[in-house]
């Protein structure tokens, strides 16, 4: 039997960073690929609950209900708490991570997105936010992540579903801004 070796299909996220002018969605430098890692236990449980139609008691995630990665259409600094986030925490990303601490002082924009589009070998879509340091001293960005909400038994909770280390850490200078883009990639 002849077997043709082809790449493994991967569904992954890719994390990109680009400097920007404060509160601007236009990068002032090229987007740089930082990581292709990332899904956490909570994302797995989303998928598991979805495909089985069964509540995931270990993570308290319901099999029904919305998943939202905030897609606000206006500029916001604090109120859109879902979607792309950055942190200054020191921990390395782990599959079991469930908690998230925001980087204080990094004002976040509303989230922007691009609907699925064709790339070589598949489809991608993305979400991004601009984080602006309006303070007077530099901030150190160590982690990026995605927060989603989903119904659970008795209510709705927010979950960290994607987490990546930013290596080397990014120094967000006072008055500076950083665009953080998560690309979801479905490739063959």
């Amino acid at each position, binding site marked *: *039997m002849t*077997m043709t070796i*082809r*790449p*493994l*299909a*991967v*569904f*992954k*996220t890719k994390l990109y960073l680009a400097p920007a002018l404060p509160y601007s969605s236009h990068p002032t430098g090229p987007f740089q*690929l930082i*990581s*292709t*890692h*990332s*899904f*956490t*236990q909570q*994302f*797995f449980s989303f*998928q*598991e*609950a*979805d*495909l*089985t*139609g069964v509540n995931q008691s270990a993570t308290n995630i319901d*099999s*029904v*209900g*919305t*998943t*939202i*990665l905030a*897609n606000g259409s206006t500029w916001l600094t604090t109120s859109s708490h879902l979607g792309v986030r950055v942190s200054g925490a020191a921990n390395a*990303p*782990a*599959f079991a991570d469930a908690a998230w601490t925001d980087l204080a002082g990094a004002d976040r924009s509303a989230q922007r*997105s691009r*609907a*699925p589009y*064709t790339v070589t*070998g*598949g*489809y*991608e*879509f993305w*979400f991004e936010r601009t984080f602006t340091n309006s303070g007077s001293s530099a901030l150190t960005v160590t982690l990026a992540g995605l927060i*989603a909400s989903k119904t659970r038994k008795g209510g709705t909770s927010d979950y960290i579903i994607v*987490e990546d280390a930013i290596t080397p850490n990014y120094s967000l200078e006072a008055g500076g801004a950083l665009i953080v883009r998560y690309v*979801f*990639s*479905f*490739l*063959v």
Partner: protein
Amino acid sequence: MNEVGVRLWVEEYVFDCGGHLLSQKTSPAHSWVKQVAQLWYNRFINTESEAIKDTSGSTVGQPTNTNPTRSDAAANDDAYGILAGTGVGAESSEDYALGTKIAHGIGAGQLSYGATTNTTGTITGGKRFTVSRTFTNLSGASITIQEVGLAVLQDTKYYLWIRDLTGGTAVGNGQSAAYAYRMDYTI
């Protein structure tokens, strides 16, 4: 940079009529198709912005986000879960259905579909989700499975997520073939 994310594999097992394993193989799966990206996008932003092609070829808005996209089809249900077919067209991200689906049944050219089951396991650094189904050939003649795929049910619509060619797997009368899509999630 390591390639991480959800890695997808397809496993194949063929059994004789006594349940003895005749062959098995595990191969990289290939085709996440367009609909899986659209379904995730719509779910994430909580809108129906992406019109999605269902397995009948109709382009429809994703009905709602309030129901799961289920894979756990019951026995005899050939509308979703893991599906088998005889189509040999190359895998493409644009696939929305199997090329030629083998219908459930015991007539000529048909396979008896078992239930699609889901299992969860732990792997190093993450979790594994496996979707599997057994097809039994009671048709009276050999059938060659050329393609398999995974379709999901959301509300009343069926959407293809994955399609793969098998390379041609003959399943004799009385024999059965089991397929599993294995999704490995790691960070």
